[in-house]
C-alpha cells in the first residue's frame, strides 16, 4: 500500500500534505479492531476499561442482536429520547445519511449530532442567519484571483495546507494578506499586516474594522441598499468601536487596525478566510455574524474571489452536516420542525418521524439529561469534548454505550459493545470537502479482519431493530439522498466518476454545480446584518490563574490522534504534547525549554513539556489537544455559545508550575 496525489484533481493538483502522504500507514496497523467486542460481565464497578482484556470477542450476529435488544428495552422503559447518536465527520455521506435515518426513522429520535458541534456549529447557525446558507461561500481556487485575503482564527498552512499554500502562492504574486491571530504562525511571514488580538476579543476588532470602513467612506452603499437589511442597527452599534476603544479591549494598536481595515475595505476582490479560532468561543455565533457584516458592508460577497469562507476541518464534516447528522435539520438543511419537509421524508421512508429538535452533542454529555444510551460512530468525545472530567462523570452514569470505530479509542474504553468499522481505503462512498465539493472515495482494499464498512453495519443494525435498509451499493444510497435533498438533487455516482466532483447546490442532473454562493442576491432573500456587542470571555485570568490558555491543533496530528499517532512519520515529528509559552514567562517562572510542567485549571490538570517560543505572547499559553496522555481538554471550559452550543475552547484561565514543585 502507498499513496499518490491526484494530479488531475482540481483541488490537489498533484500536491498532498504530510498527513496525506502518510495516511496509508494506519490502515493496516496491527492495532486495528477486527472483531466485535463485548465488555466482560466481570468488569466490576469500573466503567472505564483498563485494556482490551476487559472485553471478549463476539460474533457480529451476537453483537448486533444485543444492541438491538438493549435499545428496544431502553426505548420501552425511558422513551425514544433516552437514546442519542453521534455520527462521524470521518465517515462517508452515505454513512452519515444512514446514521441519521437510523436515529429518526428507526429509533424515532432527533438526538443525532456529530463533532461539527465542536468546530463549526456557530458557522452553520451564523451564516445561515446572515445569508441563508451555512457553508463556505466561495471556492478554493478563487484564492488565485483575490486581491486581499483576510485570514483570522486559522493556522491555515498547518490545518488546511492545501489552502494555506494557495494563499502563500497568491501573496507571492502580489495579493495582500491581512492576518488577525493571537499567535505568531507560519503565515505571519507572508502577512502584509499581522494583528495580534487577545484571544476572545474578535467581535471587538471586527466591529472596529467596520467602524473604520464606514467612517472612511469605504463601504459599498449600493450593495447595502440593494441586497441587505437591518444596516442601521449595525451602524449604531459600531459607532463606539473607535480604534482607541478597540485597542483597549484587544491590544491591537489603533494605527494598525486602521491600516488593516483600509486594506480590506478598499478592495472589491477580498476574501475572508477563517476557522475554529473564530467559531470555538461562547461568542462564536456573534463572531461569525460579525464577519458576515464585514463582508456585506464592503459588498465582498456573491462574486468570485470574495466571500466569507469557513474552513471545515475533517474530511467529511461538511458532508455530515449536509446529511442532516444534526438535531434540528434533515438532509440539505431542511428543518425537521417543518411539517411539509417531514412529510416528504415520511413518505420516502414509510414511517412517521419525530418533530421536536433533539439534543446537541454538547448537551448529550451533561448529567441530568434524559440520555441512557449512546451510539457513537467514529468519534472520540472523551478527548475532544471540553472539560473531560465532566464527560467522564456523565459516562459513569450512562447505562449503555456502543462505539463503532477502527481503533480502541479513549471513548471505546467506556463502551459496552465495540463494533469494528473500516477506514476510507476499505469502502466506496462520497465525501464533501470544505468548498462544498462532493467527491468519490473508492475501495482500494477489502475491510481488515472481520471489520465492515460502516454503512453495512448500520443497515444490519436497522434490520435487527425491525426496519429494512436494503442497499447493495452506496450509489443507491446517494440516489435516495439526491431524491430527498434539493442541494444534492443532481448528484449521482456516474457524474462524480467523470470529473473532480460537484459543488453543491447542484439541484439537477444538468446543473454544473456552484463554485460560489449568493450570486445576484442572497439565498435567504436579503442579507441580514446582525450586529453584536463585544462580550468578555466567561473566564478571565486572575491572581490565582494568571495565564490564558488557548488550545488548538498542529500540522502533523489529526483531531484526537487516533490515526495520526499510529503513523510513524507523523508521530516521530511530534511525539508528545507540549505547552507553548513565551520565553519571558519562562524566565519569570524559572521554566526552561523541555522541562515538564504542570498546567492547572479550575477543572483539571495535565503534565507536559514546556516549549518556550515567541509564537505566543506573554501570559498566554497554547496546548494542542491531540494527546490523550496530556489532554488539553481536561483544562478547557464547558461554557457554551447560547445559540450554536459550541464550547469555548480558545480561552480559559490556568496556572503553570514546574512538575514536582511542592503545592
Amino acid at each position, binding site marked *: 500500500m502507498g499513496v499518490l496525489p491526484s*494530479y488531475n484533481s482540481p483541488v490537489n493538483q498533484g500536491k498532498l500534505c504530510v498527513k*496525506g502522504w502518510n495516511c496509508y500507514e494506519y490502515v493496516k496497523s496491527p492495532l486495528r479492531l477486527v472483531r466485535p467486542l463485548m465488555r466482560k460481565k466481570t468488569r466490576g464497578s469500573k466503567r472505564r476499561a483498563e485494556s482490551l482484556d476487559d472485553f471478549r470477542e463476539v460474533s457480529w450476529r451476537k453483537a448486533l442482536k444485543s444492541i438491538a435488544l438493549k435499545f428496544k428495552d431502553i426505548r420501552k422503559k425511558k422513551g425514544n429520547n433516552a437514546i442519542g447518536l453521534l455520527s462521524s465527520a470521518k465517515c462517508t455521506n452515505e454513512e452519515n445519511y444512514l446514521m441519521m435515518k437510523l436515529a429518526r426513522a428507526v429509533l424515532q429520535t432527533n438526538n443525532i449530532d456529530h463533532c461539527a458541534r465542536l468546530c463549526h456549529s456557530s458557522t452553520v447557525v451564523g451564516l445561515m442567519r446572515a445569508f441563508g446558507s451555512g457553508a463556505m461561500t466561495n471556492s478554493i481556487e478563487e484564492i488565485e484571483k483575490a486581491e486581499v485575503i483576510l485570514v483570522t482564527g486559522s493556522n491555515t498552512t498547518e490545518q488546511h495546507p492545501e489552502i494555506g499554500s494557495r494563499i502563500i502562492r497568491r501573496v507571492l504574486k502580489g495579493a495582500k494578506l491581512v492576518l488577525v491571530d493571537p499567535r505568531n504562525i507560519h503565515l505571519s511571514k507572508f502577512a502584509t499586516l499581522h494583528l495580534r488580538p487577545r484571544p476572545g476579543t474578535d467581535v471587538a476588532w471586527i466591529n472596529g474594522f467596520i467602524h473604520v470602513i464606514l467612517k472612511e467612506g469605504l463601504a459599498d452603499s449600493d450593495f447595502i441598499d440593494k441586497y441587505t437589511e437591518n444596516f442601521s442597527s449595525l451602524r449604531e452599534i459600531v459607532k463606539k468601536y473607535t480604534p482607541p476603544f478597540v485597542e483597549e479591549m484587544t491590544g491591537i494598536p489603533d494605527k494598525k487596525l486602521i491600516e488593516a481595515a483600509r486594506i480590506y475595505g478598499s478592495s472589491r476582490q477580498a476574501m475572508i478566510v477563517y476557522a475554529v479560532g473564530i467559531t470555538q468561543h461562547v461568542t462564536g455565533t456573534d463572531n461569525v455574524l460579525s464577519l458576515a457584516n464585514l463582508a456585506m458592508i464592503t459588498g465582498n460577497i456573491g462574486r468570485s474571489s470574495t466571500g466569507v469562507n469557513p474552513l471545515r476541518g475533517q474530511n467529511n464534516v461538511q458532508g455530515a452536516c449536509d446529511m442532516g447528522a444534526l438535531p434540528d435539520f434533515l438532509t440539505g438543511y431542511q428543518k425537521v420542525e417543518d411539517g411539509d419537509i417531514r412529510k416528504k421524508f415520511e413518505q420516502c421512508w414509510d414511517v412517521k418521524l419525530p418533530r421536536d429538535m433533539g439534543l446537541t452533542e454538547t448537551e448529550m454529555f451533561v448529567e441530568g439529561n434524559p440520555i441512557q444510551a449512546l451510539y457513537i460512530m467514529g468519534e472520540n468525545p472523551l478527548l475532544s469534548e471540553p472539560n473531560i472530567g465532566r464527560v467522564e462523570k456523565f459516562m459513569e452514569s450512562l447505562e449503555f454505550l456502543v462505539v463503532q470505530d477502527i481503533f480502541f479509542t479513549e471513548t471505546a474504553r467506556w463502551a459496552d459493545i465495540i463494533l469494528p468499522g473500516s477506514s476510507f481505503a476499505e469502502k466506496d462512498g462520497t465525501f464533501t470537502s470544505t468548498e462544498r465539493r462532493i467527491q468519490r472515495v473508492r475501495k482500494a482494499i477489502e475491510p481488515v479482519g472481520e471489520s465492515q464498512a460502516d454503512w453495512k453495519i448500520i443497515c444490519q443494525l436497522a434490520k435487527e431493530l425491525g426496519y429494512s435498509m436494503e442497499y447493495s451499493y452506496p450509489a443507491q444510497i446517494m440516489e435516495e439522498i439526491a431524491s430527498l435533498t434539493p442541494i444534492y438533487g443532481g448528484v449521482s455516482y456516474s457524474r462524480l466518476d467523470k470529473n473532480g466532483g460537484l459543488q453543491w447546490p447542484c439541484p439537477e442532473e444538468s446543473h454544473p454545480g456552484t463554485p460560489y454562493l449568493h450570486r445576484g442576491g442572497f439565498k435567504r432573500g436579503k442579507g441580514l446584518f446582525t450586529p453584536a456587542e463585544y462580550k468578555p470571555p466567561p473566564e478571565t485570568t486572575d491572581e490565582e490563574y494568571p495565564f490564558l490558555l488557548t488550545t488548538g491543533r498542529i*500540522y502533523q496530528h489529526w483531531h484526537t490522534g487516533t490515526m495520526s499517532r499510529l503513523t510513524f512519520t507523523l508521530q516521530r515529528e511530534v511525539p508528545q504534547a507540549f505547552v507553548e509559552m513565551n520565553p519571558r514567562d519562562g524566565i519569570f517562572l524559572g521554566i526552561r525549554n523541555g522541562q515538564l510542567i504542570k498546567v492547572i485549571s479550575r477543572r483539571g490538570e495535565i503534565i507536559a513539556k514546556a516549549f518556550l517560543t515567541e509564537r505566543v505572547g506573554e501570559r498566554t499559553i497554547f496546548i494542542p489537544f491531540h494527546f490523550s496522555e496530556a489532554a488539553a481538554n481536561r483544562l478547557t471550559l464547558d461554557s457554551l455559545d447560547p445559540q450554536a452550543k459550541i464550547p469555548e475552547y480558545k480561552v480559559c484561565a490556568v496556572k503553570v508550575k514546574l512538575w514536582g514543585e511542592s503545592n
Partner: protein
Amino acid sequence: MILLTIDRRSLLKFLDELKREAELIAPVQRLGGATFEEIKDIEEVNFLEGNPLSSPKQFFFPQTDELFQLRMGTFSFKEKAKRKRRILFGIRPCDVAALEFSDKFFSSEHGGYEDIYYWIRRRSTFLIGINCLKPEESCFCFLCGSGPFAKKSYDLQLTPLGNSYLVEVGSSQGEEIVSTFSDFFLSATDDEKREKEILEERMEGEFSHKEVEIEKVTDRLLEDGFSGALIENEFWEEIGNRCLDCGGCNYICPTCTCFSIVDKADRNLEFGERAKIWDSCNFSGFTRMASGANPGANKRDRIKKRFFCKLLYSIENQGLLGCVGCGRCSKVCYGEIDILKVAGEIQVNEND
C-alpha cells in the same frame, strides 16, 4: 549494437507474450493522472501521454516494505524466495538514470552494504525504456545528462518513429529476448537509424531555452561548502519559508533513497513486523537525536541540505548527479520550490 524495429501492434503482442511469464509494469492513465501499475489487460498500457507523476521507484523501494514478521519467539523473512520475473515497460530516460543512481546507493560500493530487498527486485527486472518525445514544462533531463534519449542502463530502448519503434538492445538479456521473439522484429534500415538521430537532436533542442549549467552549480556549492561563505543565509531562508514540510519532493523523487526502519506490534506483543518506509530529509525528526538536539531543527538548513545533497553530495558519494531532471518535485511542491530555478539562482549568484 543490434538495431531493430517493431510496429505498434506487434509491440503490444510482444508485451502480452512477455506477460505470460512475468509481471508487466507499465504506464496507465487513471482519473487522477498517469501511473505505473501492474498490467492485467494489455489494452490498459498507455505510455505516450505525460510521464507518470510517480516514478517506478515504488517497485524496487516501496513506500512501505515489510522486511520480516515476528511471532512470540520466532520470525520469518518475507522475501526469501526468488521473485517472479518482472518487465518494466515505458520508463523514460530520466527514470532509467534514476535507477542507475539507486543501484549505486543500495549497492556495497563506497563502503555501504547491499540491500537485498532492493536487489531481489532489481535483478529480476527487465527494463524496456522509451526515449522521450514529450518533455514537460518542468523537465530538464538534458541539463542533467540523463535524457531525453537514454544512452545506457536499459535492456531494450524504444524510439517512436511514426507507426513503429526503433529498438536498441542494451544487454545480453535484451539480446536473448529479441532472439526468442524474433518474429516480432525487423532489422532497422539506415533511414530509420538516421531518423532517430534527427529526432534526438531535435528533442535536445527543446531544452535550449533552459540555460542552467548544472556543473557550474555544483562547483558553486562546492565553493560554498555549506558554510554560507558564498551563498547567503537569506537565500535559503526565503526558500525554506515556502516549504510546508509535506515531504512530497522526497517521496516523489526517483533518486531519493532515504528510509526509516519501523517496528510495529499488536497490543499483546505477540505479533510484530518490521518495515522499511520512505523518509524525508525535510522533516525535523529526520535528524533529531535522542537528547532532543537537532542539527536540522531549522527549516532553512534542511532545505539547503536537500539541494546540497542533490547537486553536490550525490556526486561525492555515488559519483552520479542526484538529480535526473524529471521535474516531479516542482509539480508536487506547495511552495513552488522549483529545483531548476533554485539551481539557476545559485549559478547566477556566481557571476555577482
